[in-house]
């Protein structure tokens, strides 16, 4: 009996468990998923919690509910991977040997990595919305806030869902407008990027959006420290931005078990072949989702596209054939822009997000890089798609490989 071991039962781990459960012969393979917690959060929903659009209990479900019956689920922390001995040490004391390993341990925020960010003011005047606790606390705070200068600060790239900070700003603009207090709130984005977003065309479009909504952008700001007393951000070059309310996207890092295993880069992301998804230099180890160092977006849609490629490669690999399916970096993200509208971007390693139309049989076309209500419905529908189709490894009507159909090249 061979052993397929999946570390992490979040978006990526759950998708792979479902795909492999129906493909691997039960007489030949057993499949195990290890995760430290029982709760599976729909993370894209965190964005909506601070504004009271979703409540936390509406975006969490039991992890096991999404794992097919033949999968063994072990509730435990992961201590360390020993790739030489093909063994994983768990914090419950057990060690597991594997024949094939999938690392899907994701990424998390680390406010303690920045001087002065994580102190007694964390949760009082400084918040995050990337964790259940952070998003909940911010919702509480916003309800009673009288206004002032709201600064959203991105500490460093890469971050999970790089459009989420922009969506937060758009939704904040709508939230304060609807409460009749937009004139009392000054909204700012402070970012290490040279503009609103990473790639030129979408950065221009999204930059115009911010401007139209009266949101000020401070680009090229590399955060060095936070001064909680004076309520200001200080960059490495000593430029400063003051705030009344700080919404922080702290440094995102891979899990500490990656560092303990001596496998990660400087941010604990696992060096991974960007096409085959094999861990660099390790036998029988693959990486899926946010845990890798791939230059693709860290997003659930990306984990989904990657999973189709990884699925093919794992089936080849266990038959002793070379992994030949290639991931192209495809990402597809709805961007909520407030007031019941949204945008959609579709891109890959080589092609930046372009305007145009995104054909989707039966539902689309969605508008690319332009605001529309159908894009907003796409975003809100994503929660249903996530629980019912995406996690279950069902094929979606969007190909893993990006298509140029409908896109306008400048």
């Amino acid at each position, binding site marked *: 009996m061979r052993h397929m071991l999946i570390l992490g039962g979040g978006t990526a781990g759950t998708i792979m468990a479902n795909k492999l459960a129906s493909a691997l012969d039960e007489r030949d393979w057993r499949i195990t998923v290890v995760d430290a917690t029982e709760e599976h959060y729909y993370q894209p929903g965190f964005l909506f919690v601070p504004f009271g659009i979703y409540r936390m209990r509406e975006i969490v479900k039991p992890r096991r509910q999404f794992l097919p019956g033949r999968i063994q689920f072990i509730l435990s922390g992961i201590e360390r991977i020993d790739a030489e001995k093909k063994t994983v040490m768990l914090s419950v004391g057990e060690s597991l040997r594997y024949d094939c390993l999938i690392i899907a341990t994701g990424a998390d925020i680390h406010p303690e990595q920045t001087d002065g960010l994580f102190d007694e003011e964390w949760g009082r005047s400084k918040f995050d919305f990337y964790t259940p606790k952070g998003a909940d606390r911010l919702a509480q705070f916003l309800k009673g806030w009288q206004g002032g200068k709201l600064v959203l600060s991105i500490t*460093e*790239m*890469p971050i999970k869902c*790089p459009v989420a900070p922009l969506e937060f700003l758009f939704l904040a603009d709508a939230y304060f407008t609807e409460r009749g207090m937009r004139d009392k709130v000054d909204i700012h984005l402070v970012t290490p990027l040279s503009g609103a*977003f*990473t*790639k030129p065309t979408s950065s221009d479009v999204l930059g115009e959006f911010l401007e139209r909504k009266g949101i000020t952008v401070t680009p*090229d700001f*590399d955060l*060095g420290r936070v001064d909680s007393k004076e309520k200001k951000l200080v960059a*490495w*070059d000593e430029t400063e931005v003051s705030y009344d309310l700080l919404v922080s996207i702290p440094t995102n890092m891979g899990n500490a078990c990656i560092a303990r295993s001596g496998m990660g*880069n*400087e*941010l604990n992301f696992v060096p991974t072949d960007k096409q085959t998804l094999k861990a660099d230099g390790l036998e029988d180890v693959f990486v899926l989702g946010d845990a890798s160092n791939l*230059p*693709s*977006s860290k997003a659930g849609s990306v984990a989904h596209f990657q999973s189709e490629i990884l699925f093919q490669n794992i089936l080849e690999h266990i038959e002793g054939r070379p992994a030949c399916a290639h991931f192209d970096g495809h990402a597809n993200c709805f961007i909520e822009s407030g007031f019941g509208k949204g945008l959609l971007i579709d891109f890959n390693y080589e092609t930046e997000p372009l305007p145009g139309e995104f054909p989707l049989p039966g539902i689309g076309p969605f508008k690319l890089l332009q605001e529309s209500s159908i894009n907003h419905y796409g975003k809100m529908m994503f929660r249903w798609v996530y629980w019912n189709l995406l996690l279950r490894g069902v094929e979606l009507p969007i190909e893993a490989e990006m298509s140029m159909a409908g896109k306008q090249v400048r």
Partner: protein
Amino acid sequence: MGTLSIAGKTIELDADGHLANRTDWTEDMAREIAAQDGIPELTPQHWAVINFMRTVFAKEGDAPSIRRLTKESGVDTKTLYQLFPKGPAKRAAKIAGLPKPKGCI
């Protein structure tokens, strides 16, 4: 795409204003690019960073991030920003004759 004239030679640049061909790079050229970029003199600490970047690039095909520079080049973040004001990763890459770091999205 632009060009750069150094010591009577014309060198091709890419869309970001970095050297188009890494093999064109020489130490003299680094001094020249730095001077044009507002860094009049390259100290041994500058060179430590530049050489570290070139080594990483040759091995991995992308320039290292600031975090990695701090961790592995032996120069702390504060100093990096003093050596290469306004974005050390980008500026040091340019002087080292490497393309603009890809960064991530």
